[in-house]
């Protein structure tokens, strides 16, 4: 689906991504994990074209991503960020259907699709008329997911999607989101720093540190055959309450 070929990126003197080559397979869920500043978000932003690589090429569907093709390529990607990234001046319905309206879908067509998605994401119908400021954090995140799914893109990209949610809401939403990804058979790439979330979503976990991939594989392989001391320390740096 995506591939990076010797891609690197610096901001000023800081090389946030060292030359990296990697493939994201169709139909698989990949989780990028690592501490703040490890380059995981940079990698995701390269994939959606919000930043351009200093060297190397990024491919989407085997096509090199060039600025002139970006706008149309992006309509085949769903992108979800923390707190949904919703437009505050539009209602939930308008947020979700903005691109469809822009592309000239009829009202009936849009309505049908939004209702279908509301059912899928378990968003109450009443929330569709609300503005983002009038919704709960969990609802905003569900609307963000619906917006990403509206045009039925083959790939979904998540940048710390649960970051702003409290634990109970997060727990439910994680369940729902996994079900959605599985049901629809989407390729997905998610950035998180939560080991539990990584294990829950990822067919494959890619651990980054200081701008490069340290190890990739199933969570199992990371736990049992850690590439180095850093991987082990990161995996065990999660606190579990003793009861």
């Amino acid at each position, binding site marked *: 689906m995506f591939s990076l070929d010797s891609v690197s990126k610096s901001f000023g003197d800081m090389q946030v991504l060292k030359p990296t080559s990697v493939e994201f397979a169709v139909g698989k869920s990949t989780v990028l994990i690592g501490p703040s500043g490890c380059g995981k978000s940079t990698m995701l932003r390269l994939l959606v074209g919000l930043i351009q690589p200093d060297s190397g090429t990024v491919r989407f569907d085997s096509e090199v991503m060039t600025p002139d093709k970006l706008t149309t390529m992006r309509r085949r990607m769903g992108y979800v960020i923390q707190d949904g990234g919703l437009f505050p001046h539009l209602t939930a319905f308008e947020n979700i259907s903005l691109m469809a309206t*822009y592309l000239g879908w009829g009202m009936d067509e849009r309505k049908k699709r939004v209702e279908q998605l509301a059912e899928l994401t378990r968003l109450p119908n009443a929330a569709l008329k609300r503005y983002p400021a009038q919704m709960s954090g969990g609802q905003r995140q569900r609307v963000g997911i619906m917006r990403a799914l509206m045009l039925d893109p083959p790939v979904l990209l998540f940048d710390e999607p649960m970051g702003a949610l409290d634990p109970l809401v997060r727990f439910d939403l994680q369940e729902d989101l996994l079900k959605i990804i599985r049901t629809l058979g989407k390729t997905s790439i998610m950035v998180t720093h939560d080991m539990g979330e990584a294990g829950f979503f990822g067919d494959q976990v890619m651990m980054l540190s200081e701008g490069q991939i340290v190890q990739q594989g199933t969570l199992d392989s990371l736990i049992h055959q850690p590439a180095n001391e850093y991987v082990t320390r990161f995996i065990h740096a999660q606190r579990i309450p003793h009861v």
Partner: protein
Amino acid sequence: MICLHASLADLLQFRFATRMITAAMLGLFAGSNVFGEANRDSSPELKVGSKAFTESVILGEMLCHLGRDAGASVEHLAELGGTQILWNALVSGEIDAYVDYTGTIREEILAEAARKGIAVQSEEQMRQELARRGILMSATVGFNNTYAMGMREVVADRLSIRKISDLKNHPELEYGLSDEFRERRDGWNALAEHYGITTSNIRTMDHNLAYRGLVHNAIQVTDIYTTDAEIPFYRLRVLEDDLDYFPTYHAVVLMRTDLEQRAPNAAKAFLKLEGLIDPSEMSGMTGRVRLQNKMEAFVAGDFLNNKLQMNRPLPSMSPTAQWKRVADRLLKTTMEHLFLVAVSLGLAILVAVPLGISAARSERVANVVLGVVSVIQTLPSMALLVFMIPLFGLGALPAIAALFFYSLLPIVRNTYTGLRQIPAAIRESAEVLGLDQNSRLRLVELPLALPSILSGIKTAAVINVGTATIGALIGAGGYGSPILTGIRLSSISLILQGAIPAALLAILAQWGFGMLEKKLVSPGLRPPR
């Protein structure tokens, strides 16, 4: 930007080009007759001007009466903001005639020629010099209205002051001097040097307000004109010019020489003023206006009817007619004011919003654009108005141009900050959805910046309503006209006839934009209850 040292000819050429453009720009509004244009018939259409003091306005009305009596239709651009404005308007053909004074011509208008060594002392020399500039100078109207220094009799008696040289023995005196008298070459500085007076107790104030200052003892000395009607009324002492400082200021008609071809009858009629008015007649007329509340047009016409056995119709002074004039003036000034504000604000929105958008897109553009509009904002409004005259002449056009420039900053700045304040996450969300730059602007960024943009427009509108009042200084009309006349005549009622509607209009603008904001801005952007 126009170079200040450009020659007048350059300015006039430039002015022609820009006037064509703005005329085209304003073509939309050509149907409305708010400029008070004269009727289009076969009679020549003339414009006369006057300065912002009563004697000048009366003489302007007299030129109107004489011109109309000779079959011309004459418009009076009354109470313009000073010698330079009138002189430039006369040379460029914005007006055809006005009355000025020999002292002013020598010291102000021909000062440049004098510096170059051309003799302009005698009236004949002045006449020749003006003729070279296409201006005809009449013989004297019959009185010498020179500057003098005045004090209240009681105060002067107490301090035993009779002559100007006595002033230097009283450093404690407070002076209230008119702006023009302080600034002009033959004004205060040269006088103080001539007489050896040293003081720092000087305040600059409007000539007409200075009388009030004298009465309330806020000041003790002011500059006056020898024909001022207030001299007897307030019991002022005209201090003797014992060291012969003040030059003579004989009133003369200045008119364009081409008038003799364009409107020969009116040109001849204007010259009937030569030798017509003696000093006591002049101060008598000024008194009737200032102290008996007669209209200038009435006093001027009445004088001509008596002196020249003319038969000029006089404006009725009955209460009904006066009230009708108040109502008419309110309607006229309202239309003029709305026109100034609406056109300048409309044009400013059309220019400033795109400027704000391009500034928000590039830091480099932002530095230049915000820098330039901020500098424009710091220009004193009067200076900006005067800059506009060589480009646009007199009347609504230069005022609209100046107001346009003043309206830019709030709108540009608020458009810029409104767009810049949109969180990166939201801008990026729109981008990653697959919207191109223009669609993002239209569907996401502008709607989000709208509250800020509208509040910038609101600020501009309110400033604009206030600033438009100074348009009266260059003949643009509006609520500034009654204020200006009110200051000249010390008439609170007249001042309020301009000030109250201006304040109401500002409040109305504030309220109207509030409503517009409610209507246009998404409910999602309102602060939660």
